[in-house]
């Protein structure tokens, strides 16, 4: 494997972080868009992939492809080994006690649905409550609403303050005798707020309430240790972690996963099948019906290898510098208001501009080669909370540089000229 942004030096730790060298690992960043150098500020939607991930996926198809867990032939053995190795890498990356607690799914959305439809359905009855927050992505709201509707239960949302920080006092107040689960995001996709997960878990556990953490936006920016966080479930998507699309992870504590019924039925998740009775496989296969995204898992494993070889502390300091620099630069654009100004933030600059709809901002920036996201970011309740129909969002990864933010500000000045 090629080491990120440096020449490999055996026996030493990663070389100090160097954004320019890291950029060279991401071939797509060399593209031009609309005749201008591509400025990619949409990593919260999906992150770009290093060459090593692209190579791992194509190598799987070139050299290892066969179905996992069934064939006795050489390729099936190799595919199974590669797939299970990826699982072990994820477990190590999250500091999960057991690789069998790592369930491969399509993404965060599927992970939340899995928990809602098994753990949730099992525990929720009429009058029960699922506690969420105002800053959740629709994927951590709608699955709960669906199950609550079926079970006669309801969702309760914890408010955020004007800066976009979670009101912990309100959280405490809302944990009641009917609360069966707390589902909370680690980092808000629309605001960038970093939630104090450890503290939140302590508050919930003190009242006997299990916690699911949506890590889709957390894991690309923070070091995640599920044991230190103390949560019960942790979900994330491979494609936001510089890996392929179509693969994601649900981590859960063994005791929960074992007590949960299977979700989807099919091949691979059974022990024995007869028309009278079927018995189910153990973990993790019980939750992995059908042929999984094998190449995706291998690609995710390669993404984790890439991150482990990176000076992540240096990468985080670089991202923080970009966030501070971007915050200062955007604050100087007349008529611009940042949405989400929490003290602890990661990777997101969400904003609105006086008299210009975010969608128009997005189109004009696009013609300058600047890719941002505009809209409600699958967080309509949050948009309502801040009294805006939509925002423009620039989101960062460690491969961004200050020049990207300069291009953003230049583009915004162009927008202001057009709409003056």
């Amino acid at each position, binding site marked *: 494997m090629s080491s990120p942004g440096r020449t490999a030096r055996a026996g030493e730790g990663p070389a100090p972080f160097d954004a320019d060298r890291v950029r060279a690992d991401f071939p797509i960043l060399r593209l031009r868009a609309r005749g201008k150098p591509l400025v990619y500020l949409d990593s919260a939607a999906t992150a770009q992939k290093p060459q090593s991930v692209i190579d791992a996926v194509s190598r799987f198809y070139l050299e290892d492809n066969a179905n996992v867990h069934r064939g006795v032939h050489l390729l099936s053995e190799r595919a199974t080994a590669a797939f299970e190795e990826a699982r072990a890498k994820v477990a190590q990356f999250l500091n999960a006690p057991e690789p069998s607690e790592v369930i491969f799914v399509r993404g965060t959305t599927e992970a939340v649905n899995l928990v809602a439809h098994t753990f949730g359905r099992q525990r929720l009855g009429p009058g029960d409550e699922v506690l969420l927050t105002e800053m959740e992505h629709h994927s951590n709201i709608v699955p709960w609403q669906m199950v609550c509707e079926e079970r006669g239960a309801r969702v309760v949302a914890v408010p955020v303050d004007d800066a976009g920080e979670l009101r912990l006092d309100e959280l405490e107040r809302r944990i009641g005798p009917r609360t069966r689960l707390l589902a909370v995001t680690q980092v808000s996709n629309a605001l960038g707020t970093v939630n104090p997960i450890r503290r939140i878990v302590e508050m919930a556990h003190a009242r006997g309430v299990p916690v699911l953490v949506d890590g889709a936006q957390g894991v690309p920016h923070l070091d995640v240790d599920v044991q230190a966080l103390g949560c019960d479930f942790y979900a994330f998507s491979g494609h936001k972690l510089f890996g392929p699309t179509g693969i994601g992870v649900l981590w859960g504590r063994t005791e929960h996963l074992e007590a949960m019924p299977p979700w989807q039925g099919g091949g691979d998740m059974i022990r024995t099948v007869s028309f009278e009775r079927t018995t189910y496989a153990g973990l993790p296969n019980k939750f992995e019906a059908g042929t999984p995204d094998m190449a995706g898992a291998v690609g995710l494993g390669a993404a984790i290898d890439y991150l482990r070889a990176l000076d992540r502390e240096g990468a985080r300091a670089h991202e923080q510098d970009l966030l501070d620099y971007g915050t200062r630069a955007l604050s100087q654009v007349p008529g611009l208001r940042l949405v989400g100004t929490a003290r602890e933030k990661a990777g997101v600059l969400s904003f609105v501009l006086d008299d210009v709809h*975010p*969608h128009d901002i997005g189109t004009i920036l696009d013609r300058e080669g600047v890719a941002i996201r505009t809209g409600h970011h699958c967080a309509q309740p949050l948009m309502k909370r801040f009294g805006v129909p939509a925002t423009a969002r620039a989101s960062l990864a460690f491969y961004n540089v200050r020049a990207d933010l300069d291009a953003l500000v230049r583009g915004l000045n162009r927008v202001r000229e*057009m709409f003056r």
Partner: protein
Amino acid sequence: MSNELDDLYQEVILDHGRKPRNFRRLEGATVSAEGLNPLCGDHFKLYVKLDGDKIQDLAFEGSGCAISKASASLMTSALKGKTIAEAEDTFRRFHTMVTEGDKSAATGLGKLAVLQGVCDFPTRVKCASLVWHTLNSALKGEEAPVSTE
């Protein structure tokens, strides 16, 4: 700066986006409908006052981007006094103009022709057509809001 961008954001469009015409609730409307673009959060309500098959008056309210607002403003101005059949014919030609960039489709569309530039921006066609689909729904008496998705 691309010329396409200048074509999209012509002065007329910016003007209608900033100061939309017929931007109000219409008292005594015969039919009304809601239009939503979930992608970007555009949300309009359209009111139509019919006299037989003639559109006596139209108005709209809500929020959206410059393109969707300008389109609504221009549409409500253009269709006042037209028959339903004429409105449908105008929609067909407008739709061809913004989706296919067919210049000949723009003839006879009057001021609506300024939205021709939208055809170079496939992601914005929905913005320009939202209010038209909403009109369709209002005339058909549909109850569920129109969505571009």
